[in-house]
């Protein structure tokens, strides 16, 4: 546990020192959301209807930039090998990275909510905290497999192509469940479907946070 706390501290310090990069990723996400409006046209009711989907697509596209940078510092100057020589478990390294990515993506998702409200004219009659809760759950679903794939892609050729190629098909359930849950929170849930979607994304999170933690050692040690 002490190893995990120390690793998280290191990751959060790195995140803080590279905060300009998070701002750049936010601008990328906001620009993507602006471009989605051009695909639909200036039809405000259609834009409002698809707003949750655009929010999540913006976050998903931004997540590839954020996640691909996740192991950049460690691969430069063989830092990862140095970390593995320390008397700490690779699992602690993985969970620290995944938690740092989760925090970064959650902040990014929360920052994209005002962009969604302004660009797609979404009426704010819903509980912001609940939507943020869904963003945290969805971000957890992106960061668990995203962190392990980022560790692989950072040491492979064509790393910028490889990460989305591996990650996007895998996170289809997260995207579906998060879009539906956000949509139900914003537009209302007369049929009581929200619980099913939240359960789905939570189950995905539990499965992949456990599985990826188990196999991460093999990815970095071999």
């Amino acid at each position: 546990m002490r190893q995990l706390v120390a690793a998280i501290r290191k990751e959060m310090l790195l995140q803080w020192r590279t905060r300009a990069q998070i701002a750049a990723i936010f601008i990328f996400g906001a620009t993507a959301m602006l471009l989605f409006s051009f695909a639909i046209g200036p039809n405000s009711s259609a834009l409002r209807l698809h707003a949750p989907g655009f929010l999540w697509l913006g976050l998903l596209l931004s997540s590839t930039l954020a996640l691909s940078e996740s192991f950049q510092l460690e691969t430069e100057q063989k830092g990862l090998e140095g970390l593995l020589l320390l008397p700490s478990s690779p699992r602690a390294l993985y969970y620290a990275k995944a938690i740092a990515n989760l925090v970064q993506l959650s902040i990014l998702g929360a920052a994209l909510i005002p962009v969604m409200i302004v660009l797609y004219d979404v009426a704010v009659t819903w509980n912001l905290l609940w939507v943020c809760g869904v963003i945290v759950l969805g971000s957890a679903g992106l960061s668990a497999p995203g962190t392990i794939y980022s560790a692989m892609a950072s040491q492979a050729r064509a790393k910028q192509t490889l990460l989305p190629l591996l990650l996007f098909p895998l996170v289809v359930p997260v995207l579906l469940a998060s879009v539906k849950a956000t949509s139900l929170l914003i537009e209302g849930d007369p049929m009581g479907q929200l619980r099913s979607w939240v359960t789905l994304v939570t189950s995905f999170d539990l499965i992949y946070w456990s599985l990826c933690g188990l196999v991460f050692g093999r990815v970095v040690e071999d």
Partner: protein
Amino acid sequence: MADPLFENTGSESRPTVAFALVAIGLATMLYGSYVGLFVAPPEKFMGEVYRILFVHVPTAWNALLALTFAFASALMFLFKGDWRWDARLEAGIEFGVVLSFLLCCQGAIWAKPTWGVWWDWDPRLTTTAVLLAAFLGILALRKFVDDPVKRATWSSVATVIAYVDVPIVYFSVKWWNSLHQMQSNPNTVSPEFHLPLRMNAIGLLLLLIGLITLRTRIAKMRLREELAPPLPAPSAAVDYATGGGR
């Protein structure tokens, strides 16, 4: 003890059984397709269009079998570290991807006259497309990693991660939208359709086993080259030959 990868067995030097399986599989499929196309009667509601099921359903079963074989090979490699399982993993993923692609194409060909669209977001169709994309990503990973140790471990880990996702994708898309034909079983399929369906399924299975065996053999040969220790440099060889080495 020598690595089993470097042991040359008799079956590997002459893959007669694999070629025989391919030939028997092709002949069985040819007969099954003949019965399906010319002997089986038209279906009550779909008419002639239904005949694609004689290749579509066997393709679906065998695609899932090939990917399950890849998943089992990935687990075996991770637990045992035997290189032969990495060669099997490579073969399993490649044929799983080919069959999944064929499955999507056949589904689209069947959907157009039946549902009026080439593509619909039904759970099985969408799950197959997601599965195809996920395993294509793993094939790309194998191509982009040069170190055989990293390539084998990472693709095994990625296969386990992707395979675990299959039921989750299926259920998420099922909740999202559903249109596909209800799953059939021998009680819901007319007896005249059993023979061509079973012949094609068995034929494709034999073909798949034969092709996976041959592809595994090629992958093993490549692995032997990649993992073999480097030969001494030509100058050093001359020195040893003349007894003038340093």
